């Protein structure tokens, strides 16, 4: 498969392989600074914004915002938006948009709720039905966009309207289906036992350390440019501190009345989201399919000429997006322990698009990562939560969130222009 038809036998070892100069720690930092200045900022603006916001809310609401109860609350509040945003990253990478993801999550939530109550299905059957609905929705939208050729904006706008109607039809105007199934309710309302939480944290840290050190060693051995060991270690230590710190905080008692009910441990939704993020991140960065998604977003015609089935890639991305919306619908139903006709409506979709874009995913396609959805979702959850604690009205919250989204989109557009100018594309 990879036999060579190359003209001359490689004489001198190439400048590119074998004799590469490995960057030092300082050079690696210098390279990063150059990259950022060249317009490739990634999640940096979002991380800075997150730090500023957290600091501001801690200063303004020192007793409530950093409380363990509120921190756990932040994760549960942000879960729905982050889950939809992770799916949206796939669609945004193509340079497309899915405006229907919010109400798609509502439809799936409504299917879950009616399955559980009206039909009395066991939780796993209702769950499977909700997830299958998400896949069907994604295939439908993917077909309309990729095969029929309707612009995704129009397709998903139509779906947005239609799914809003579907939720209303399933639940009935003014209706409300409550969910009592303990498994579904536990997803967003129960916690992982503290010891299991610690075990998962340690496994996660060791796995990350092991895989990044192994990659480093392999690249060094093959004579490829590798990040300096110091940098790898710094990243491992930073991640360990964050993970261990979070588990330590969440494993404290946070019930307002510990004698009556004990609330302790990492919310179940946290490992769930981390697992989803790892799987999706793996798909995007480590598989040929993921590479093809970036290629379609970069140059769809070139991708087609390279023999890649662009339509199939688009179909798959829309399907993944709607599937993630289905998971979000289940999480939303679990958190509210009910589904009403507005499920997945109001600001859910816009927050999710905002999360992906604030995190650094480009609306122009071809650039973005799963972690963007996590960081951007955290920014949105912190704004939403902090401003509510400060007693601001919903009106002000929307204005501020809108302003942050506009700022993120502006950063995207400007850094794109800057990248053009410095040839980093």
């Amino acid at each position, binding site marked *: *498969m*990879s*036999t*060579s*038809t*190359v*003209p*001359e*036998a*490689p004489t*001198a*070892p*190439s*400048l*590119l*392989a*074998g004799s590469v100069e490995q960057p030092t720690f300082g050079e690696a930092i210098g390279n990063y600074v150059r990259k950022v200045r060249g317009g490739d900022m990634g999640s940096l603006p979002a991380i800075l914004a997150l730090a500023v916001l957290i600091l501001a809310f801690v200063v303004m609401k020192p007793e409530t915002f950093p409380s363990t109860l509120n921190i756990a609350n932040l994760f549960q509040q942000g879960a729905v938006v982050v889950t939809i945003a992770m799916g949206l990253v796939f669609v945004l990478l193509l340079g497309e948009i899915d405006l229907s993801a919010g109400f798609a999550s509502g439809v799936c939530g409504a299917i879950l709720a009616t399955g559980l109550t009206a039909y009395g299905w066991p939780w796993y059957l209702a769950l499977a039905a909700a997830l299958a609905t998400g896949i069907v929705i994604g295939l439908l939208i993917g077909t309309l966009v990729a095969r029929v050729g309707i612009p995704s904006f129009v397709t998903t706008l139509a779906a947005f309207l239609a799914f809003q109607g579907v939720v209303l039809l399933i639940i009935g105007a003014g209706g409300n289906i409550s969910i009592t199934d303990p498994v579904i309710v536990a997803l967003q309302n129960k916690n992982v036992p503290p010891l299991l939480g610690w075990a998962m944290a340690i496994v996660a840290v060791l796995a990350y350390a092991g895989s990044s050190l192994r990659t480093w060693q*392999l*690249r060094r051995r*093959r*004579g*490829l*440019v590798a990040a300096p060991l110091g940098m790898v270690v710094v990243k491992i230590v930073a991640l360990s501190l964050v993970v261990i710190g979070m588990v330590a905080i969440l494993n404290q008692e946070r019930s307002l009345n510990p004698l009556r009910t004990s609330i302790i441990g990492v919310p179940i939704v946290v490992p769930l989201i981390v697992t989803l993020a790892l799987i999706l991140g793996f798909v995007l960065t*480590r*598989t*040929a399919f993921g*590479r*093809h998604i*970036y*290629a379609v*977003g*970069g*140059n769809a*015609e*070139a*991708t*087609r*000429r*390279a*023999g*890649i089935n662009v339509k199939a890639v688009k179909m798959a991305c829309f399907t993944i997006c709607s599937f993630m919306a289905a998971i979000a619908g289940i999480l939303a139903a679990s958190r509210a322990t009910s589904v009403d006709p507005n499920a997945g409506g109001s600001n859910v979709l816009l927050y999710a698009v905002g999360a992906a874009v604030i995190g650094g995913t480009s609306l122009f396609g*071809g*650039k973005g990562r799963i972690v963007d959805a996590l960081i951007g979702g955290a920014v949105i959850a912190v704004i939403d939560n902090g401003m509510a604690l400060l007693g601001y009205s919903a009106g002000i919250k929307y204005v501020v969130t809108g302003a942050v989204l506009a700022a993120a989109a502006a950063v995207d557009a400007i850094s794109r222009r800057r*990248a*053009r100018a*410095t*040839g*980093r*594309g």
Partner: protein
Amino acid sequence: MTQAPDLAPPPTLEVRGGRKNFGAVHALRGVDLVARAGEVTALVGDNGAGKSTMIKCVAGIYPFDAGDVLFEGQTTHISSPADANELGIEVVYQDLALCDNLDIVHNMFLGRELKKGFRLDESAMETRAAEVLASLSVRTVRSIRQHVASLSGGQRQTVAIARAVLWNSKLVILDEPTAALGVAQTEQVLQLVRRLADAGLAVVLVSHNMNDVFEVADSINVLYLGQTAAQIRTKDTSRMEVIELITSGSAGMPAGAVAPRPSPDAPERATRVASATATTSDATTTTNGSTSA
């Protein structure tokens, strides 16, 4: 170059009487092409003569409506880019078909990534890409992990060509590879083209530029209004004659043999297809003296 007329193996690619219509438009009305291993075959013709259509037919973007395609002597039917790739036909398009947001390695392996199970084998791809670039004597690229967006025109062209030879390719078709390049970069790319042929590949070079054609081509195929006017050995012809063929579809006697219709088993030949408008040619040649725009 490497001709042993009587015992020569069949040409890598041979097209006989290829036709292609787009509705009422007859884009190709009978094209013939012979591309041999170890040779650069130039495909020339004025704008709209059918060069792009012809290479797209060979590349499987859309198939010929009629006519025979022989690959290494075997009749074959190329109906998709995948068919073409399978045979070992690689096309480097004029607009390069690279993804700006991916790095050099990812572009070179796009669509044919090396994998370890489910996972991309990044280090194997990186090593291999570096080897190929080195063997093509590419020394100008700073890092093969840099995004293609940051490369110059010549470097991009090099990446596109390197991608084409990365595979077991037997025929590489280059569509106007020097059209957007400066003098020095043009020279580098032409040297690269020559090296590909010297390494035993069949190379088809689509070009407008007579200097490029006469510098590297072993054989010149001229298209005129969707038909093959002639395929001539470079050493047997002159610039004037080729330009005459391009602009009028016919010329005075080419130095080589002239057959009214090519006989497929005459390996060293100059094919001349009776052009529909083969009349006197002096008027057009003087007004359109040079097509190397």
